[in-house]
């Protein structure tokens, strides 16, 4: 049982971290979410289907829920220690300003963008995972792209 967990942990931890980071844009919150998600999985692994696709889907859904729960908490609404103090680009040394650009994307578009562009899920699969209508997902993708395009054009004009 532990080997199975170890295997899943090592295989998906980075993906889950990235998904959490794509929503929170905060290193420490993302680490907490990762730990909570895998702790939940560890405690419930016997009740979850051993099919890897199902496991991945479970981890993704749980991560999304944890992210949303985090921002629902009163503590998070009132207190924010690290958002303005920690810049992840310093740690990973990005070559261009893509991180600043992607940061402009509003929260409600982030998960959908990540599932679509990073995981490569179709809008139908995203609809199943997030329980949002497929048409809404398509609309959000289009709107998100438009926002980012306007941001890019605005930056170019400044230059």
């Amino acid at each position, binding site marked *: 049982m532990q080997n199975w967990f170890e295997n899943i*942990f*090592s295989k998906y*931890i*980075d993906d889950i*971290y*990235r998904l959490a980071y794509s929503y929170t844009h905060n290193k420490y919150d993302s680490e907490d979410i990762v730990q909570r998600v895998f*702790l939940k999985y560890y405690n419930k692994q016997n009740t979850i289907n051993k099919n890897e696709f199902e496991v991945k889907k479970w981890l993704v859904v749980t991560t999304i829920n944890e992210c949303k729960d985090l921002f629902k908490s009163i503590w998070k609404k009132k207190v924010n220690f690290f958002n303005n103090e920690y810049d992840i680009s310093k740690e*990973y040394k990005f070559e261009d300003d893509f991180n600043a650009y992607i940061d402009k994307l509003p929260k409600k578009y982030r998960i959908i963008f990540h599932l679509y*562009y990073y995981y490569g899920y179709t809008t139908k699969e995203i609809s199943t995972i997030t329980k949002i209508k497929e048409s809404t997902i398509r609309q959000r993708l289009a709107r998100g792209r438009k926002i980012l395009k306007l941001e890019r054009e605005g930056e170019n004009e400044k230059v």
Partner: protein
Amino acid sequence: MKKFKDNYQEYYSKIKLNEQKKDVIFNNIVNNNEKYRKMYWHKKFVVVTCSILVICLIGTGVVFAKDIVKTIKNHLYSLEPSDNGSNNYKCVIKAPIINNFNDEYLIENTKIDLNELQKDLNKHILHNENIEDKSFTVVNTTKNDNRIIYAKLYKNGIDAPKIIPEASSNTTLDMNLSFLTRYATQEDIREIIEFEVGKCSDDNFDIIHIDTLDIDVYLYKTSTIAYAYDDLEFVVKAFFVYDDILYNINGSIINRTMIIDFIYDLT
């Protein structure tokens, strides 16, 4: 030019947890799982226990709120007259226990013994549920001297039929308190009761008037206010029941306006 998707994937593929952090998380989950689980249940237990305690406290507070408010009110309104006269009336709220009148204080000023009179008034105003049926009895006040209380009823300034025969030292008089209640708000037919207190053979009576205060008892949800005073309105007593509490105001240098203001403040 790279596609957005490629940029996106490239950007996020660079973001990863360092190995040390992964080990810490793995260790937390696998090795300390039991500890976390215990902490989880411990936390739940504390939260549930605290919630129950808070609910119990709120419940108790709600149940006893009325009593607590009454106790606080009792404390606040129990003002003793001060020597320098800054508190010019004594206000005691006690229900259903009748306050022991500060006899000494009054006698010093007026030489009138109001003890028995007060007891009777209190008794009847306290039990005012069927006030129409109640009557109070006035008897001679002290055994040590010859003082007798005479009572006369006046209706619009004219002698009412009930007059205690002179020199009847132990006469009792049924005097219905409805005199005080029925006409409380009807100025033209209001009755004033006067008690003459003194030695039966002496013309030097002290007179105590009992009147009602002109206040809308229905609006202020109070009983009729019995207002007793001597000739010079030097000694004043007022009784009324508000919210099941007997308010017994007595003292000197106190006038009707002050009592009415006091009732306004209560309501």
